[in-house]
């Protein structure tokens, strides 16, 4: 069983081939691969209703952070994450502005010191899947600490 609206049949079929499992060094005794585990999902206990304090500790240690959202997702919508970053109470170091990819507006971003909030226009929950070009651009900018 998978999350709604996701078709992972192809991956499942490939990963559950005996020769693929052998090539990936997966013990034959293990059950078939599935996108999500009901066992884990059903018995999972959430402890953090918010990770605000964790973020504040990490930012205070001088780490760099990026919070990005495909802006058509409703499971974790961009507005909630934008409000989360704003609620950290850090001073904005840029205005809320567009970022460009391939001469098109790819979304919006704003920086608050070491943390950047960025949207990827028209992308859903899995940004690298549904907006691979802008996702790669964003990824490169973040890991090189470059401009968006």
């Amino acid at each position, binding site marked *: 069983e998978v*999350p709604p609206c996701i078709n992972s049949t192809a991956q499942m079929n490939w990963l559950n081939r005996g020769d693929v499992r052998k090539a990936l060094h*997966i013990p034959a005794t293990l059950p078939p691969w599935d996108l999500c585990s009901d066992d884990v999902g059903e018995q999972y206990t959430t402890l953090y*209703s918010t990770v605000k304090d964790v973020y504040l500790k990490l930012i205070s240690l001088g780490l760099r952070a990026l919070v990005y959202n495909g802006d058509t997702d409703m499971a974790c919508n961009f507005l909630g994450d934008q409000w989360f970053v704003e609620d950290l109470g850090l001073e904005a170091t840029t205005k809320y502005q567009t970022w460009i990819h391939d001469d098109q507006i790819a979304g919006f971003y704003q920086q608050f010191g070491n943390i950047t909030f960025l949207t990827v226009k028209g992308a*859903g929950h899995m940004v690298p899947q549904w907006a*691979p070009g802008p996702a790669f651009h964003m990824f490169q900018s973040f890991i090189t600490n470059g401009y968006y």
Partner: protein
Amino acid sequence: QYAPDEVTNLPGMKFKPNYRQWSGYLQARQGKFLHYWFVTSQRDPVKDPLVLWLNGGPGCSSLDGFLSENGPFHVNDNGASLYENAFSWNKIANVLYVESPAGVGFSYSDDKKYATDDDQVADDNYKALQSFFAKFPNFTQNEFFIFGESYGGIYAPTLSLRVATGAAKINFKGFAVGNGLSSFALNDQSLIYFGYYHGLFGEDLWRDLNINCCEKGSCNFYNSSSDACKTLVIVAFGIVYNSGLNEYALYLDCEGGRRSHRGYERTMIHLFKNCGKHMHTLKFSDGAPSSVSLG
């Protein structure tokens, strides 16, 4: 590098990769083994950063990230052959995918007990990371980043805190969260505005939500004490999550239909938890209570 885990050929791969890859197991807590799949950078493995990618769920596999999102190759619809991903993130970085926690994908626990929580997952991920660097000691020099998606909005920062404050020598630079669950309250609260902005709610429902959930200019759609508000929020969320829309991408078709995954439902029900105890008596899939008409 840890030779026994190296993957030198893969069924269905007709192209010759210009990077190396390893697949095997990392040691988490005693008796728990997390499957990892590691691909080096197509550019400069020695100098390029090392990136850990974690999908969320909770309980979903990071191989979805590899094979559907940012990995070097994806699976064709025939489920048998592979094609190269032109936008793979390993074009500029060494990328490590870990299926976490134990029980997810090919990760397992000797005792087959899979109950866990946020902190245990973070501890296990940290141990697994140390196990990775024990297998690939050369990569302790590389700049290191942690990426989490969805429920990875909990995984990534909690693991990052252990990496940033732990004893292991890791050249940790930062973390990123994609469409992450950072705050249940803000995720709920914002979804009402998101849904209204995209025209998913009619004027009646929007007016009733404002009347019953807002006062003095501020609204609480997350944990209102008003039963009327809670009922209306259920209706609104029912439209978002249960009316056939693709909640992962509003403007895309709902691939694969509405099959549901209990873990996902539990997370979504958790999102509803603000609707008070009686919500837990409502089966999510029952949608809106009959007493409320959909405009």
